[in-house]
């Protein structure tokens, strides 16, 4: 069992967490015309990096989203932060 740290609840069992997405993907402005290629990139393209990664996870127990830095080879958790900058 691995322990992940929710920025709100503290250290918890990995089974309480759900991987959501790679961090830093920005949804295209859908009020403007978007090419199929741009939309496909947004929907499907993954960096899928080997080594240090930044991802959005959910702690399903408190239902909060947060950012986690991990190493995708060693599986070590390097840090977790709330998504909201003011921490509220």
């Amino acid at each position, binding site marked *: *069992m*691995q322990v992940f740290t929710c920025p709100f609840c503290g250290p918890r069992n*990995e*089974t309480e967490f*759900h*991987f959501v997405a790679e961090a830093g993907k920005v949804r295209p402005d859908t009020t403007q015309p978007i090419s*199929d*290629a741009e939309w*496909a*990139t947004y*929907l*499907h*393209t*993954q*960096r*899928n*990096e*080997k*080594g240090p*990664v930044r*991802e959005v996870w959910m702690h399903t127990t408190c239902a909060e989203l947060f950012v986690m830095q991990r190493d*995708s*080879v*060693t*599986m070590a958790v390097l840090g977790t932060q709330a998504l909201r900058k003011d921490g509220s």
Partner: protein
Amino acid sequence: MSKYSMFRLLREGLTGNRGWGQAWRSPTPKAAYDAIVVGGGGHGLATAYYLAKNHGITNVAVIEKGWLGGGNTGRNTTVIRSNYFYPESAALYDFSVRLYEGLSQDLNYNVMFSQRGMLMLAHSEPEMEMAARQCNAMRLNGLDAELLDRDQVRRLAPVLNFRDDARYPVHGGVIQPRGGTGRHDAVAWGYARAADALGIDIIQNCEVLDFITEAGRCVGVTTSLGDIRGGVLGAAVAGHSSVLAQLGGYDLPITSYALQAFVSEPLKPVLDTVVLSPATGTYVSQSDKGGLVIGGGLDRVPSYGQNGNMPVQETVLGGLAEMMPALAKVKLLRHWGGIVDVTPDSSPIIGPSGVEGLYLNCGWGTGGFKAIPAGGYFLAHLMANGAHHEISRPFDLTRFETGMLVDESAASGIPH
């Protein structure tokens, strides 16, 4: 290549097995080849073999960073089947099963393809309806499929859980009789030996570190053993496809996950088919040595670490204990993980990479062992002709842009 045969076996047996010789050479790489295949797993080796056999292209190098089949080809649970829902997938995977049916003869290497049947259980009346739908879809796709009721499943696999208090009672299932298992290493080694005999250089312990691009065209690779130029390139590196994409400057819709498998201590024969329970995702077959070969769903966390994850182990092994309570106390001998390349629609990517001169065969996720002959056949076709075979066309990378996904995860409920 000196042919393997009954006569040869007898002769070598009587003369101390000293005359077998090496199955393939270990050449030093040349400076240039007509074609380069990156990745010495089943798909890469099969690609090289079909380049030579079908297209007469023999000045080819297969470049492998480790040893042959040391990736997923040597780590999988060896299930071969084509029980897919969509016509595009059925055509692709059944092409592969048909090649497997003749592969031992074709390669002069026993790949031990045992068509012992692939049974998918149904645990409720609604699941029986879905099983009937699956069975009909398969038949419409020209595949062999039979709908079995509870008694028929019981006759086939009495070791399954038929207790009254079963959490997932067996209502019936769908079987593909032509499905079964093969010997994974033999598939890699058989293709390697046959490709080598046709003049192909198989280069192990040589990692591709970068692509060489000139005027927008990929013309070779930089490796740990130096630069090697190629007229046309193909990549079949499974879980490391995104790492190569980053080097080559193209985008992929792939996420890498660990997939685990388990082998038990050897047992007397208890199961002579492959069984999958969709309720838990656990599937199991019994190897010729008697070990139960057990697999299940993907790990929960994207990963390049070739090891397991406890929560998934619990699900898979709990699933086995539920499916076959009589085997709950069986001990495990080994367990391991491999890194699989998962696409959004659980279908593979075969086609141009977006960089001229570089073609892809990847995205097989948890199910590409069964597809090794087809994957190699179609990547070779692409590299030789610069155009798709009609069976591989639907699996082009452009489907993510056009929206023409082949969504097998949703369609046939197969946990890729």
